[in-house]
């Protein structure tokens, strides 16, 4: 029973990590009772599980993940969505719009539009497939998008959302943190936006160090104090839609996207159904927070449509 590495030591592919009754986990493989690294990254031991954490990586979809993507094509009743990584995603109109909807679905979302969506299905043979039916999902407009890569996202969120919530509280920004590595930020003014970007870039650079939340918090406090000294008004400006609400769930659930109506999820559609919204109006959203059960039946159809 031997471990051949120190905590968070940089290891490389083929390096022998452990021998004996250890379990091989992500970033490692085992051969004849020995566990080797499969990646260049940081070796970790948790209990008797050995894993290697990569510093970067591509996004591999997982059902339930919140992702931010850009629409690249419209094909019949589907939008092709770039969520980065090796697997392009598809969004079927039934998972985004209420029926009846127009034949030309580009009226609702078109090439270049950015959406926050959830992965409903993904396996080795097909997908991933997306839905816009859910709280916090829908069209994103204004603001800016940072791409930090999926490997950094757990750190951006922090344990039970501690990091992202701290940043949002201190800066009073809106942010959507997606599992595929993208962060959408909307800030009330330019200095605040700059600070938010600085905070996220700091996390990106130091993702593998300890006490990062404290350091990011300290940096923000210091910068905010300086801003207050030089321009007292700046931090008082209210953002148009203050949609703060404490994160109740584990990541990847995030703050509601401001452009989506704050409908409570899981409610069946007894309320009057909105007609599919006007084309690409930024405030309206044909992304109702209703169970996507009906849409699921169409998933089989979705697959056929997507075949190329």
């Amino acid at each position, binding site marked *: 029973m031997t471990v051949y590495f120190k905590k968070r030591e940089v290891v490389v592919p083929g390096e022998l990590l452990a021998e004996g009754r250890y379990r091989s986990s992500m970033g490692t493989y085992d051969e004849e009772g020995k566990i080797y690294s499969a990646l260049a990254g940081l070796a970790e031991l948790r209990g008797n599980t050995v894993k290697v954490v990569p510093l970067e990586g591509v996004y591999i979809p997982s059902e339930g993940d919140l992702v931010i993507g850009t629409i690249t094509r419209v094909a019949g009743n589907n939008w092709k969505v770039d969520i980065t990584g090796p697997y392009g995603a598809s969004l079927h109109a039934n998972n985004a719009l209420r029926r009846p909807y127009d034949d030309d679905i580009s009226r609702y979302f078109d090439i*270049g539009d950015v959406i926050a969506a959830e992965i409903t299905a993904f396996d080795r043979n097909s997908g991933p497939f997306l839905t816009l039916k859910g709280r916090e999902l829908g069209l994103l407009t204004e*603001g800016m998008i940072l791409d930090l890569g999926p490997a950094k996202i757990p750190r951006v969120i922090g344990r039970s959302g501690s990091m992202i919530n701290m940043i949002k509280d201190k800066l009073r920004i809106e942010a959507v943190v997606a599992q595929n590595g993208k962060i959408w930020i909307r800030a009330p003014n*330019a200095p605040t936006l700059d600070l938010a970007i600085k905070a996220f870039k700091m996390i990106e650079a130091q993702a593998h160090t300890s006490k990062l939340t404290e350091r990011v918090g300290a940096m923000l406090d210091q910068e905010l104090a300086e801003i207050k000294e030089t321009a007292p008004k700046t931090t008082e400006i209210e953002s148009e839609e203050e949609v703060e609400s404490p994160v109740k769930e584990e990541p990847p659930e995030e703050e509601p996207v401001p452009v989506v109506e704050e409908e409570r999820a899981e409610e069946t559609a007894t309320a009057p159904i909105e007609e599919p919204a006007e084309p690409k109006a930024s405030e309206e959203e044909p992304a109702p927070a209703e169970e996507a059960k009906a849409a699921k039946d169409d998933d089989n159809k979705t697959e056929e449509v997507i075949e190329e």
Partner: protein
Amino acid sequence: MGDYSAEVISNIDRDYIANFLDAGKRIDGRAFNEARNTEIELDVVAAKAEGSALVHLGDTSVIAGVKVLLGDPYADSPDQGVMMVTAELQPLASPLFELGPPKEPAIELARVVDRGVRESEMIDTSKLCIEPGKKVYMVFADVYPLDYDGNLIDASSLAVAAALLTTKFDEYTWEDGKAVPTGKKLDLPIRNSAVEVTVSRIGQHLVMDPSLKEEMVQDCRLTMAVDKNDKLRAMQKGGGSGPLTLDEIETSMTMAIDRAQDLHKLIDETIKARKKK
């Protein structure tokens, strides 16, 4: 539309860039007439190429290598040497480049850089003749982008200029019906040099040395080749079908001439600082 209309840029990115420009700024903090950090490394292929240079323009990097070969002159210019610039957009430099033979962007890159060299009469091809009608020197400047973050034309033309200015090749004479090496090394017969400067139009704004994201939202770009005497020698409007007003063209020219002076100085200083081979 930028050069790569196949690649979709998100509306958020597009608006973000436009908002910055409207506020008089660029997303990377540069002024409209400011170029990215520019570096030239010489002699990067010293053991096999007659001349070579690697240029870093921000995160864009391009390598140019010069080979001087013996060849037959063109029929209509029997006492002139031959000069040609080629370029290949290898997929190693960008996820936007595909495998396969050069397509229009690569061809345009090669031809625009070539025109800068040719129209400025940089190389006196009449001095590249070994035996009229029989043997001349052929000068190939080949461009390989290694990392594409916008504005390959400017980076490539700078690399080609630096590589040609530092080229050394074997001298040949004509004896008994064939070319014979003399054992001496020659410099290229240089009369001038031109560097290309590109200005993009994004909406109402003109920005020099566009980064990749700026190229992807540009309406069009104007590339100007400026020689050591501040003369314009070649121009190319490309990168999209958006039009330009005469005022915009004139403003671009002013930016280009300014920048070209800095570039010519940079080339001179880099060559001076170079250790003797």
